[in-house]
């Protein structure tokens, strides 16, 4: 057990897997000698050599294409897209190729690749360093989409993703890299140290894909969140003293519907929080599923607290970011407490 922030935990996952499996390698822009602009691959080139951890040309489509070719030939590439905002040049390779390879070849070929990318706002990154594109990937059959919210999960989920035989989109909440963040941007920055989720085993362990975590038990309302928003939801529940059950989805696809269903059937109320733009975000799918599975248990409309349907505006970071205040409002509305 070592105390690790999320960057270190992710680095440790890569280290463990590269150590265990010579077929695991990692590459991307600035990933090699430098160790990545967020330092997630730091030290790996020195430890495993240039062929197993290297820089690539700035061509996200080429990076993913190369990973697919390697993956089909038995390797387990982990690629980094420097910011999730820059994943779109690789969209065709992800959607048309990685996602469909097993299906269209009837299992002859597959793409056991992991695509890591920092996502989300909170660092004044403006419109091209703040996006949350997870919703797009959840629409594509054949992809798995994972979003950790703390160091322990980050490592365990990344190991599971690397070992998974399907392509996994692994989105890392960059605002959580160095410490938890609950949306109170005006308070002092906190570190991971001292928190239970930052106690990370040094060696190999897995957090399974497809399993959510109930991070706060409660009876009054179910909150569905992932990534940074888990912390925002926790803060909101504490501050408003609402007996909310907060579910950290961890994996969006495949979704842990059982945990969600059991909770909402019990609470009868549901609030969904994500940072991505609202319309057709993953929150929409969650609403659809919850009302399909729990309609007769629902006592109020399901609410979404999300980013607005605008690009992420530099000067209005905190008006855009769905912070605790907005979550509290939604919780109150769903509980029938306020307008």
């Amino acid at each position, binding site marked *: 057990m070592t105390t690790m922030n999320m960057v270190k935990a992710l680095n440790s996952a890569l280290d463990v897997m590269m150590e265990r499996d010579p077929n695991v*390698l990692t590459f991307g822009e600035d990933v090699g000698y430098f160790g990545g602009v967020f330092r997630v691959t730091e030290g790996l080139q020195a430890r495993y050599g240039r062929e197993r951890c290297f820089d690539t040309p700035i061509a996200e489509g080429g990076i993913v294409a190369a990973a697919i070719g390697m993956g089909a030939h038995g390797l387990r590439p982990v690629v980094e897209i420097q910011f999730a905002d820059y994943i779109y040049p690789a969209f065709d*390779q992800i959607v048309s190729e990685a996602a469909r390879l097993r299906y269209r070849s009837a299992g002859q070929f597959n793409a056991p690749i992991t695509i890591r990318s920092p996502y989300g706002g909170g660092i004044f990154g403006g419109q091209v360093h703040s996006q949350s594109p997870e919703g797009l990937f959840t629409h594509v*059959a054949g992809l798995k989409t994972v979003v950790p919210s703390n160091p322990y999960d980050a490592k365990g989920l990344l190991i599971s993703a690397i070992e998974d035989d399907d392509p996994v989109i692994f989105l890392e909440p960059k605002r959580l890299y160095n410490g938890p963040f609950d949306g109170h941007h005006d308070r002092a920055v906190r570190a991971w140290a001292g928190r239970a989720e930052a106690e990370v085993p040094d060696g190999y362990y897995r957090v399974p894909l497809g399993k959510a975590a109930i991070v706060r038990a409660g009876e009054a309302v179910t909150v569905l969140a992932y990534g940074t928003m888990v912390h925002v939801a926790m803060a909101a529940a504490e501050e408003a003293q609402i007996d909310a059950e907060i579910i950290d989805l961890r994996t969006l696809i495949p979704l842990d519907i059982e945990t969600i269903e059991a909770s909402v059937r019990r609470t009868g109320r549901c609030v969904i929080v994500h940072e991505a733009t609202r319309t057709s975000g993953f929150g929409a799918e969650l609403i659809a599923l919850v009302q399909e599975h729990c309609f007769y248990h629902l006592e109020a409309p399901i609410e979404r607290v999300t980013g607005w349907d605008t690009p992420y505006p530099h000067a209005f970071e905190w008006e855009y970011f769905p912070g605790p205040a907005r979550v509290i409002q939604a919780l109150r509305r769903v509980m029938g407490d306020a307008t």
Partner: protein
Amino acid sequence: MTDGGNDLPEPVARAPGETALPSLAGLRIPEPQARPGAAPDFSGLVLPHAGAARRPAVDDHPGLFRELAYDLIRVLDEEGTAVGPWTPALDAATLTGALTHMLMTRAYDNRMYRAQRAGKTSFYLKSTGEEAVSVGAALALETADMCFPTYRQQGLLISRGYPLVDMMCQIYSNARDPLKGRQMPVMYSSREHGFFSISGNLGTQFSQAVGWAMACAYKRENHIAAAWIGDGATAEGDFHYALTMAAVYHAPVILNIVNNQWAISSFQGIAGGLETTFAARGIGVGLPALRVDGNDLLAVYAATAWAAERARRNLGGTLIEMVTYRREGHSTSDDPSRYRPVDEPDVWPLGDPIERLKRHLVRLGVWDDARHAAAVATAEVYVKQASGQAESFGTLGSDQRPSVSSMFDDVYAEMPWHLRKQRQDLGI
């Protein structure tokens, strides 16, 4: 706009309209030499003599033979004699084998085309006139070298002994379709035969081939990758990724551009073929670049073997432009008479690859018209028999097809709950 602006240094650029500038004359939209009704014209295609192109050592620096991107590597001359430094050492049995595979490919194409016309499947796409491109490459590669083909290299599968019946079952999406009815006709896949699953999205696999080749190098294998792309599809970003990454990592890959002059209705000038050769794209990134007579099986073989040796000797990738001609419509959905002269295929100056190899074999004294006629007939009979067998397993729209429930398999390695539920919803 705020006040107190940048008034100190004078703006250096002239203000608009201050000077009299010429007006632009409009966009240049490339047009082919001839459209329907006009006489076909290939006078723009410069044809160097067979045997004239030099053959560099595989370890020469690519900067030393850039002219080969503008030249044309040809081995067979007009009379069918193999000439010049690219002449490969292939024995007669190998060559007649290759001829047989070209004949088989053509017979297969013809039969499947007719099957589509007869309503037995939804779509078909021939490689007529381009058989040397795939058969010649297969001859130079090992079966364990992975091929990333387009939809027009069926000759690779046929050369590598993939059962015709399996190919046809894929075309028919029938009960024995190796791809379980999931793919449109001609989108074959056979890992065993070193034939990567065809996507249908143009270009995407060119860059994947580089990844595969990188894995070969990473694993210290002794096999390489080869990829094909059409002249039209070279404009996609994936083409650029492939070239860039092959160059940067010295990936052991052979990158083939099949310039068959057309991309559906667009002539190769729309992809940039009027400005320079497609082989020149290789010069752009510092890859060795060869331009090859793609209707000359010996030239295709020789260039591929050269590139394969280079790759296996850790010298990196090669870009090859195979100059050929798409004799037929793009596919069964296309009618080429709407956009090019109907007799254009007949005047294509590089001729027919089968005729050219035949002439060579006749000249070598190992072949004659009678043997050729017999081989054609054998191929046709053989294809016909295979097709009878394939049809006995069903054709598209018949009851004989893969089990419906299998349509939910293989989306993931393990089926998640939502797909299980959807399978249930479908009532199966």
